[in-house]
């Protein structure tokens, strides 16, 4: 999947302002960003629902509309997208009937964890159940690329976890997934790669660890008998430090290097803790910046 120089303006608003992104088959990619960052517009262009003002989209070497017609893309759209007066089985069955090589409907429902809801009508579903039905509808064409726009909004913690379990069963078969989300822990836990958007641009792109590192690495705490302030300041990769008696707290761009140097200088250091700046910290620092970090 390849996006090159993608732009989309709505009047004066630059919803997407030059996005380049290549996703290899088998990757699970999280698309993060605050509201209005251009995530949904990017997803719409990827799916061929919105035509870009400039730039090109190819999915498995085809135009999005062709890839869709070939059943190569399954998508779970944000909100709605279901019928009140049709049953779950009917909706999934209809979408299956339109595709050439669909999964059996019962199989798609089972994978989405709603095998028992086939006869339930759309207006009788809870918010979490609706999300699963959308997932089943996206799955039923047996696509190679699954695109999920805010897949777990309106789900409680339990059903969110269950949803991701069925999701992982799917990605274990080597399919490609792109999901936009607000929940950072989901990106942290389930994505191989994180793409951070702000104001229509990509501001960070890499593994969860890399994106975290972009925002300032990790914090190292330890009890170090005989430590002195200059010694701490002299450690490699340190960006900030605090010394209180024998306790030190150090922010480091590369905590591995810092730690090795620390242990070389003070072999008796103990109670060592290294904590990552959460993705949330990275997210906040990267999306709040006026200038893109990249």
């Amino acid at each position: 999947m390849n996006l090159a120089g993608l732009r989309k303006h709505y009047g004066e608003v630059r919803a997407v302002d030059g996005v380049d992104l290549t996703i290899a088959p088998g990757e699970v990619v999280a698309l993060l960003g605050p509201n209005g960052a251009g995530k949904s517009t990017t997803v719409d262009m990827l799916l061929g629902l919105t035509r870009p003002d400039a730039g090109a989209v190819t999915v498995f070497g085809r135009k999005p509309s062709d890839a869709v017609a070939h059943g190569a893309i399954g998508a779970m759209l944000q909100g709605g997208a279901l019928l009140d007066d049709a049953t779950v089985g009917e909706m999934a069955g209809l979408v299956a009937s339109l595709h050439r090589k669909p999964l059996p409907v019962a199989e798609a429902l089972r994978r989405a964890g709603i095998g028992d809801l086939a006869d339930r009508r759309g207006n009788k579903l809870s918010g979490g159940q609706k999300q699963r039905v959308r997932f089943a509808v996206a799955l039923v064409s047996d696509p190679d690329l699954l695109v999920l726009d805010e897949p777990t909004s309106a789900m409680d913690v339990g059903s969110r976890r269950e949803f991701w379990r069925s999701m992982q069963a799917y990605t274990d078969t080597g399919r490609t997934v792109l999901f936009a989300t607000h929940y950072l822990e989901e990106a942290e836990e389930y994505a191989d790669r994180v793409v951070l958007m702000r104001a229509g641009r990509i501001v960070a792109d890499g593994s969860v660890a890399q994106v975290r590192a972009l925002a300032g690495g990790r914090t190292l705490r330890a009890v170090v008998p005989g430590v002195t302030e200059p010694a701490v300041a002299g450690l490699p990769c340190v960006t900030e430090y605090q010394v209180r008696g024998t306790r030190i707290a150090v922010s480091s761009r590369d905590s591995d290097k810092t730690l090795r140097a620390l242990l070389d200088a003070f072999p008796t250091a103990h109670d060592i803790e290294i904590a990552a700046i959460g993705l949330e910290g990275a997210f906040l620092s990267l999306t709040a910046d006026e200038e893109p970090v990249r």
Partner: protein
Amino acid sequence: MSVTYLALEIRRVLRSPRFMIFTVAFPVLLYLLYVGLWGKDPATKAVLMVNLTSFGAMAAGLFTGTRVAIERQAGWQRQLRLTPLSGGGYLAGKAATGMTLALAPVILVPLVGKVVEGVGLDSAGWLRVTLGVWLAALPFALIGLLIGQIGTADSTQPITQLVMLPMALIGGIFIPIDSMPQWLLNIAHVLPSYWLTQVGRGGVTTDLSTSLGRDALVLAAWTVVLSVAVIRRYRKDSARV
């Protein structure tokens, strides 16, 4: 357009009580009422039968099309755009649903006319009243589609009423065309509902009838114009979202 798609569409409409009332029960009951009020002679009974058959066919077409607005708002249309179903296939399916459902009044009202009210026609006449009126209802399925693509879920109801009332009144369904002054009749000639009724009317009476060829021509022209409007509107609408 797939059979599963069409079957689901029809099943969904049949679940709607509004459909059953408006397009099945309403024309039949109204016909019985009108015959009770004005149907003194067989000729009037036959004309009323044509009018109410036309009304039912028109309502069925308009009503199914307007359901498009609900699907558009719910995002179902977007979801379907992510399947191999083309825009043309989607629209054709909706129009076909409207036409299939229009079969109900087109069969029921003439049946009641024959069995209950004793209307007698030759087979050519029956063919015009049933098959003829059914085919002539196509422009209304298209008008419904157009309304469904312009309106929102909330506004399609009043818009449909706003279209249906003048169509029914001035088109000669609820006000007999024999009693219309010339100027109103001139307006009536513009409306597809007038020509829809004329198709059936020609089968039961020679009063104020027009040639079937001309009826067909005018309705075909309406069909072409409305088809173009529906397709253009769909393109515009799907480019925007």
